[in-house]
C-alpha cells in the first residue's frame, strides 16, 4: 500500500501563501502528474510531503496513517522517495557513495543493499561505468539518472520526482521518461511526477492535477486533459 493523501494543506513563506488549502491524492500503483506554471506550488507540495516544510494547516496521510508531524528523515523509512528539484547529487562523493547514501534507511540489511546496488547498475549501466568517479563530474543526464537511482535505493513505495527533465536535451528527456514508464509498469512503483513539460507528462501519467497559485485548478484523467484548452491556459496564467 502506498496511498498518499494531502488534505487542505496550507504553507506560507513569511506571509505569502505558497500552498492554499491544497488537496491531492495518489493511490497505490498510480502514475500521477502534478503540473502548473512556475511558482504554482509544485515543489512546495513535494517538500511538505517529504517533511522539509512545516504546514500552517492541513494533513498528510501515507498508507492511511497521518504523517504530518513525522520528522522528514523518518518518512523515507516509511516508503516516501523524493528526487529533488535540480537533482542535488553530492558532487564530492563518488557515484557509488551517492547510491550508498540512498540506502541509509536500510543500512542494517547489508546483503540486500548490495543487491540493490547491482540492480541499479543493471538499470543504469552508465552509472556502473562511472561508479568510482566523483558525482560532480557527471553530465546532466547521468546526474539525473543518479538522483533517481539514489532515491530508488531506499526502496520507496512512492517516488516523487521534481522536474527531472529540467536542463536535459530532448533526446535524454525521452530516455528518462522511458525509464519512469518502466519503473511504473514493471516494478509497480507509485509515481508522483512534477513537470513543466505538461504534454509529455500527460502522455505518461494516468491522472493529473494542475496547480495555480497553490491550489488545484483542474484535475482529471490525462487523456481528457491532454486536449483541454484550460491546461494550456493554466501555463500562461499569472503566478504570483
Amino acid at each position: 500500500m502506498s496511498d498518499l493523501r494531502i488534505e487542505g494543506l496550507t504553507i506560507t513563506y513569511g506571509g505569502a501563501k505558497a500552498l492554499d488549502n491544497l488537496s491531492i491524492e495518489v493511490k497505490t500503483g498510480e502514475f500521477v502528474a502534478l503540473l502548473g506554471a512556475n511558482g504554482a506550488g509544485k515543489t512546495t507540495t513535494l517538500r511538505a510531503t517529504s517533511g522539509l516544510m512545516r504546514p500552517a494547516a492541513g494533513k498528510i496521510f501515507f498508507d492511511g496513517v497521518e504523517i504530518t508531524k513525522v520528522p522528514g528523515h523518518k518518512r523515507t523509512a516509511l516508503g516516501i522517495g523524493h528526487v529533488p528539484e535540480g537533482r542535488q547529487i553530492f558532487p564530492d562523493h563518488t557515484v557509488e557513495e551517492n547510491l550508498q547514501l540512498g540506502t541509509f534507511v536500510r543500512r542494517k540489511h547489508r546483503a540486500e543493499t548490495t543487491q540493490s546496488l547491482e540492480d541499479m547498475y543493471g538499470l543504469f549501466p552508465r552509472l556502473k561505468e562511472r561508479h568510482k568517479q566523483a558525482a560532480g563530474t557527471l553530465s546532466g543526464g547521468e546526474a539525473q539518472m543518479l538522483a533517481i537511482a539514489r532515491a530508488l535505493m531506499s526502496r520507496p513505495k512512492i517516488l516523487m520526482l521534481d522536474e527531472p527533465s529540467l536542463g536535459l536535451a530532448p533526446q535524454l528527456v525521452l530516455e528518462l521518461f522511458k525509464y519512469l514508464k518502466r519503473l511504473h509498469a514493471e516494478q509497480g512503483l507509485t509515481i508522483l511526477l512534477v513537470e513543466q513539460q505538461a504534454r509529455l507528462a500527460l502522455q505518461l501519467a494516468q491522472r493529473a492535477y494542475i496547480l495555480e497559485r497553490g491550489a488545484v485548478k483542474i484535475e482529471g484523467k490525462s487523456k481528457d486533459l491532454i486536449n483541454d484548452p484550460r491546461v494550456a491556459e493554466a501555463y500562461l496564467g499569472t503566478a504570483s
Partner: protein
Amino acid sequence: MSLQIWIDGLFAGSVFAIIALSMTIVYQPTRIMNFAQGEGFILGAALGYQLVGVWKWPLIQSLVVLVIAAALMGFIMERMVMLPVQLSGSKFAWIIATLAAAMIFQSAFNIKYVNVTFSYFDLIEKDISIFGAKLSVQKLLVILMMIIVFIANDQFLKRTLWGRSIRAIAHNPDTSTILGIPTKPVIKLAFITGTIVIALVGFLASPVIIVAPAAGLFFTIQGFTAAIIGGVGSPKGAVVGGLMIGILDSVVRSWLGGTWGLFSTFFVLAVILILKPNGFFGKRVEGR
C-alpha cells in the same frame, strides 16, 4: 637545538591539534567554525581544578562527571548556535551566534573563578626520559589522545556510512533528510562529541600549561589557526596544523624569547593563507 624543545613543541602541538580536531568535528556536518569551542577546554580545566585539585576526588569519578558535564555543555551550545542560525537564515549568523555563546560561557567561568588559574597536581606524577629530555606521563597522555582522536575521526569519516552522511549533511541538509539521514540529531551529536573531546584535553593539559578562566577564546583561536593552516574540515589538516604551530611556537620561543612565539604563529598563518588559501589538506568550500 635541544630535544626538549621539540618534545615541548610536540606536546603543545598536540593540544592545539586536539582543539582543532574538536572544531573539525563540529564543522563537518555544519560548516560552522564554533568560536565557543574553547570554552569546552576551560570547562575541562575548571572541573579538573575543582574536582581533583580542590575536592580531591578520585580520577575515575572526576572523569565521569567531566564527560557528563561536557556532553551537557555541547547540548546547550548546539541550541545556542544552531537556533539563531536556523531562525535567521543569514549566511553569517553563525559568527555572531558562536561568539555570543563564547562570551556567555566565559562570563560564567569568570563569575565562578575570578582570579583563579586552573592548575592542580599532576594526575600521574611520573616522568619518562628520552635521550636526556623529559616527558611527563601526563604530556604523553595528551599526545596519545591526539593520535587516537585523529584516527577515530578520520576512519569514521572515510569508512562508515555515518561518516559519509556527515559529509552529505554539510553539502545539503535537505537532500540528506529526504534520503533518511537524521540531520538534526547528527548535528547535536557532533557538538556533544566535539565538546567532550576538547574538555578532555583541557582536563589533561591544564595542570601543565596553566589556564585562566577567560582563556577560552585564546584556545579557540589557536585551534582555528591550526585548522586553517591544515585545511578546514580535514582531520589530517587539524593534526598537521596543530603540530606545526605548537612546534614552531616552542622553537621560536627558545630562540628569540616568549613574546615571539605567538607572532611567529600568526606570521606563518598569514604566509600560508597567501600561498595555500585552503590550507594543506583543505578543499575549496563551494557555496550551496
